[in-house]
């Protein structure tokens, strides 16, 4: 396919020879498309295909786009973790240290966080020192998540992690009060009607609505509960209403560390249900987190998914 350019004007403002600039711009478009597709394939749990995409993008980025290249390498390793492999992040950490003046704070924070957590399995004795040296370079989100997961494995002060996770949860929760009220109101006033009218006839609408309540069975349970005790409905809806998957992960860590394992399981199941049709990877990870024997492994994967 020939790109019919009747003048070189379009690429001239980029400087240099127009044809070279065109090739460069096209390479970057293809590389960024591969990068974005890699993220989507990860979300679809097609890890091998996702890795191939990031590797294709890396080939273009490696020579001229150091920042993007580092992010590709990070994604490739994090996909390895999702596949259950043991990945070593030390080389990326060292690369970041050597080039920190070329990177933005968020990427530095990301590389620090993924390296610190990898030490849990390789060099646990280095965690404290590395955490101290990285603390000032980590974003609030990365710090809270790292401390939370380290605490699950007993490598960080549990009380401090609980305090920070709770603070994060409370802050996000403020904006969700109205959503919770609306959902409780739905269960109380329309739940019965929706069940009887739509069940069997319009399952699609019912299922779509039910995803906010942890699935159809949970919605039915809540509708029944609403007839007896409103406060219990509020408690449950409040527990499973989150702003996004990071918020859900933060709350999950907090519940687990506080010892509220039943609630942690309910939240993880609800999240797994919510993401089922939208993000198979997240649905799988939260589903694993709902199983007591797989919780810790799932937490590691959720960490590397979200940072």
């Amino acid at each position, binding site marked *: *396919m020939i*790109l019919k350019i009747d003048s070189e004007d*379009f690429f001239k403002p980029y400087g240099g020879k127009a044809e070279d600039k065109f090739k460069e711009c096209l390479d970057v*478009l*293809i590389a960024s*498309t591969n990068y974005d*597709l890699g993220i*989507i394939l990860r979300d679809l749990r097609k890890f091998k295909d996702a890795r191939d995409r990031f590797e294709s993008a890396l080939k273009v980025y490696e020579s001229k786009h150091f920042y993007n290249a580092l992010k590709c390498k990070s994604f490739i390793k994090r996909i390895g973790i999702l596949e259950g492999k043991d990945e070593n992040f030390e080389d990326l950490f060292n690369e970041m240290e050597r080039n920190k003046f070329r990177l933005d704070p968020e990427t530095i924070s990301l590389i620090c966080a993924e390296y610190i957590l990898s030490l849990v399995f390789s060099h646990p004795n280095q965690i404290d020192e590395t955490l101290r040296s990285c603390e000032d370079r980590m974003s609030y989100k990365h710090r809270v998540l790292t401390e939370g997961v380290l605490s699950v494995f007993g490598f960080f002060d549990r009380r401090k992690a609980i305090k920070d996770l709770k603070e994060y949860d409370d802050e996000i929760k403020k904006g969700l009060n109205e959503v919770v009220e609306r959902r409780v109101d739905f269960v109380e006033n329309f739940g019965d009607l929706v069940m009887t009218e739509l069940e069997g006839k319009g399952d699609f609408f019912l299922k779509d609505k039910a995803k906010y309540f942890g699935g159809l069975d949970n919605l039915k349970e809540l509708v029944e509960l609403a007839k007896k005790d409103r406060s219990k409905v509020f408690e449950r809806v409040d527990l499973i209403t989150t702003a996004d998957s990071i918020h859900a992960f933060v709350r999950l860590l907090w519940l687990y560390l506080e010892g509220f394992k039943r609630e942690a399981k309910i939240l993880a199941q609800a999240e797994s249900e919510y993401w089922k049709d*939208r993000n198979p990877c997240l649905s799988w990870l939260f589903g694993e987190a709902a199983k007591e024997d797989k919780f810790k492994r799932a937490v590691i994967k959720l960490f590397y998914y979200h940072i």
Partner: protein
Amino acid sequence: MEGIDVAKKHGDVYAWAFLLELAETCRFYKVVKVMLELGKALEVEAKDENSRAMKLLTVSKYLLTTFKLLSAGKLDYRVVDEVVNEILKSFDIVLRDVEDLKVLKDYVKGHVLRDRANVLRGIGRIYDAKRDLNWILKNCQKLKFDSED
């Protein structure tokens, strides 16, 4: 805010680019509001084919930036659905305009689809996003530069 008036009046691509930069740097609510307003000024005519292509690329990037600001929690969650719908509608307009381009069509369309895919992924429509990205890989990889035509 002089740049905003210039952009409103002339649809000047450099003014748009300035606003984009501003919004990405400052991330404040007022800029998001202004950008949304500007999004409605898509009908502004560009004087030639190249500036039209550049305008469509810029508008596409502006739409993506507006979405990013939105998802970074800079707007009230109650208006999110409404604004996302506006953004997706604007993408449709941009894509329709791209079809009228005589030159650079697939090149510009590739950029617009990549930006829309980012928005679609952000709202959980990953299958639609995947479709957009696959279109780019299928159609843009083969593009060649030909200055003689």
